């Protein structure tokens, strides 16, 4: 294997893990656009959704039926979370809401452990085994599948926001909730909708990564940290930024881990940190974020 194919192979691996980060980062960005908060529980909600899917499949439901059911359950669950957990602290300082999501994180994580135990579960792989061989570079179908689905989700979100009236309403709420109310928009309902959407995107993320990471209650904990990095790099209000940021973080850490001996696998987590810092010092709003967006 030549040095070039070798490098490409590492890039592919990086894209694979990057797509995983990107998928959760999308959900994070979605919530942030609507509410201006960072949802620490996003990964755990995704994990919970994945368990729902697992439970359905384990009880005999075919995967392709279990998937839409799971997404629907997640959508409803996300709306419920907004209504029950977030709404009561809506008027409180932003940090209070963030800490509530931290509490939710701890709660959901422990709850999943209580119900399903911490034993690793296998999750059905929706993509076929094996992969492509492109000039000596091996690309698993699952990697391609994850990247593809993430791209589709991003595209659907883009269409939803930019080209539908409900998307317009959602953007208006994200931009100025007070004025939205004065225009007769039920802001509370739109926020519920936003949480439902984010939970659905999170569920997609969980179902995508579970076959690779293996399902257990702490599955999304590590992903969340990298998803934060991805969203920070890309800009916390840009879905495109989340995806680009995720892929970038994945490739950067894989390459440095593999090629820069001094850094090595143990310190490679520092690489995205340095890149993010460098990018933010030049563009404080992230690569794709809008500078104008400033929340009170």
């Amino acid at each position, binding site marked *: 294997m030549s040095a070039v194919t070798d490098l490409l192979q590492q890039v592919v691996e990086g894209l694979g893990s990057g797509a995983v980060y990107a998928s959760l980062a999308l959900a994070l960005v979605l919530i942030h656009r609507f509410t201006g908060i960072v949802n620490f529980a996003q990964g755990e909600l995704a994990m919970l959704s994945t368990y729902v899917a697992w439970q359905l499949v384990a009880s005999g439901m075919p995967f392709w039926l279990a998937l839409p059911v799971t997404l629907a359950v997640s959508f409803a669950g996300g709306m419920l979370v907004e209504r029950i957990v977030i709404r009561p602290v809506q008027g409180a300082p932003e940090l209070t809401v963030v800490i509530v999501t931290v509490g939710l994180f701890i709660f959901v994580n422990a709850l999943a452990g209580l119900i399903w*135990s911490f034993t690793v579960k*296998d999750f059905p792989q929706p993509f076929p085994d094996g992969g492509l061989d492109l000039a000596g570079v091996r690309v698993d179908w699952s990697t391609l599948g994850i990247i593809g689905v993430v791209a589709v989700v991003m595209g659907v979100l883009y269409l939803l926001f930019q080209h539908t009236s409900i998307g317009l309403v959602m953007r208006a709420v994200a931009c100025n909730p007070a004025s939205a109310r004065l225009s007769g928009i039920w802001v509370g309902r739109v926020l519920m909708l936003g949480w439902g959407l984010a939970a659905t995107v999170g569920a997609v993320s969980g179902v995508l990564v579970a076959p690779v990471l293996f399902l257990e209650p702490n599955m999304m904990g590590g992903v969340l940290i990298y998803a934060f990095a991805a969203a920070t790099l890309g800009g916390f209000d840009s879905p495109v930024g989340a995806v680009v940021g995720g892929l970038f973080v994945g490739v950067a850490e894989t390459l440095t881990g593999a090629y820069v001996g001094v850094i090595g696998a143990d310190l490679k987590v520092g690489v995205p940190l340095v890149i993010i810092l460098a990018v933010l010092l030049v563009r404080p709003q992230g690569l794709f974020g809008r500078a104008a967006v400033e929340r009170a």
Partner: protein
Amino acid sequence: MRKTTALRAAAAATAALLTATACSSQRGQDDQSTTAGGACKGQQTTGITDKTIKLGGIYPLSGPASAYGTISKGVAAYFKYVNGKGGIDGRKVQFIVRDDGYQPPKAVEEARRLVEQEKVFAVFQTLGTPSTAAVWDYLNKQKVPQPFVATGASAWGTDDKHPWTIGWQPNYVAEARVYAKYLKDKKPKAKVAVLYQNDDFGKDLLGGFKKAVAGSGIKVVAEESYEVTDPSVSAQMASLSRSKADVLLDVTTPKFGSQALAADARNTKWNPLHIVNNVASSAAVLQPVGFKNVQGVVSATYFKDPADPQWAHDPEMKTYMNALHKYAPDADPANQFNAYGWAVASSLHKALDAMKCPTREGLRDAVRNLKDVKVGLLLPDVTLSTGHGDAFPLETMQLMRFKGERWQLFGKPVDTRKEFGPLTK
């Protein structure tokens, strides 16, 4: 107005703080400890009477390492089972489990709670190297036995300043020696790639392996580490595959073990001999990967895997299964950590039986003077042995290879002490 509110609140806060602390209304030192009379004169009998024995354990029931918390269920089930049969030498066991969330300061707090407030006889098991290292100074100063800690760091057996602390499971260095011996015999020219967890566990095992193969034809050609907080090890596996090594030594905990096995199976271009370490060798780890993908994987073990059908008719395994169903209905008997808990608890049972004096000193000495003690859930040829200059109860492991749907033991049990000599610091 606001200032006085603030002050009042401050006062209220102080009061609340103090009352929260004021569970017992006195300094509580009066009955700090009791001592024995007779032949065992002067020895501590805190936590033990003729009818009862009080033990405490500290496990991560919450937090990132909560997968291991279930060990406490296996332990508790064993003690309940024993109590049902009349207890240990007539003494009913009271086992108090505390949660440290895998945080050392919390472990210190809970150890002190167990010793000073609950007045336990011994702190039976602390889980994980950081938590154990955080409390062993304290426990040794208090002269409280800390038997059979749930971590395989070699420090517990090589340190001579902490006589009250002792490990149980084969230490990671010993396990590394087993693999080294196997490779020396079978692949004396092996090029080895190592995936390891970046903590004491991974480093101990990797270090032990390197030391054990030193001077032989075996070379470690690549090593990659991961953090427990990492989401996956696929990038590390990709890096390792570039080494073209013919052996992969996989030093991981269960979730990462599954990931590494799956990554190895996916990569059809690199097919090394995959050695997975004992922690990640449970059938529960391999099953999610798919049995067809893990054929020929090698590991080593010392206790019977409850998920392995070959032990289904083993009498002790049956007892374990029934007891777990009865006393810990929410625990999964097939989870190897539950069986681990059961095995370590029955080992303690043997040690308690062997005490010359029913005192803390008695237990300290008993665990350091075990002679070929058999424990039901351990492999037939694996026994507990300690003695002067040997503070490692288990040092024998047996190799196994995965075939069909189960592990198959092969070769003779490897007594690493005989093969490589005693472990030193």
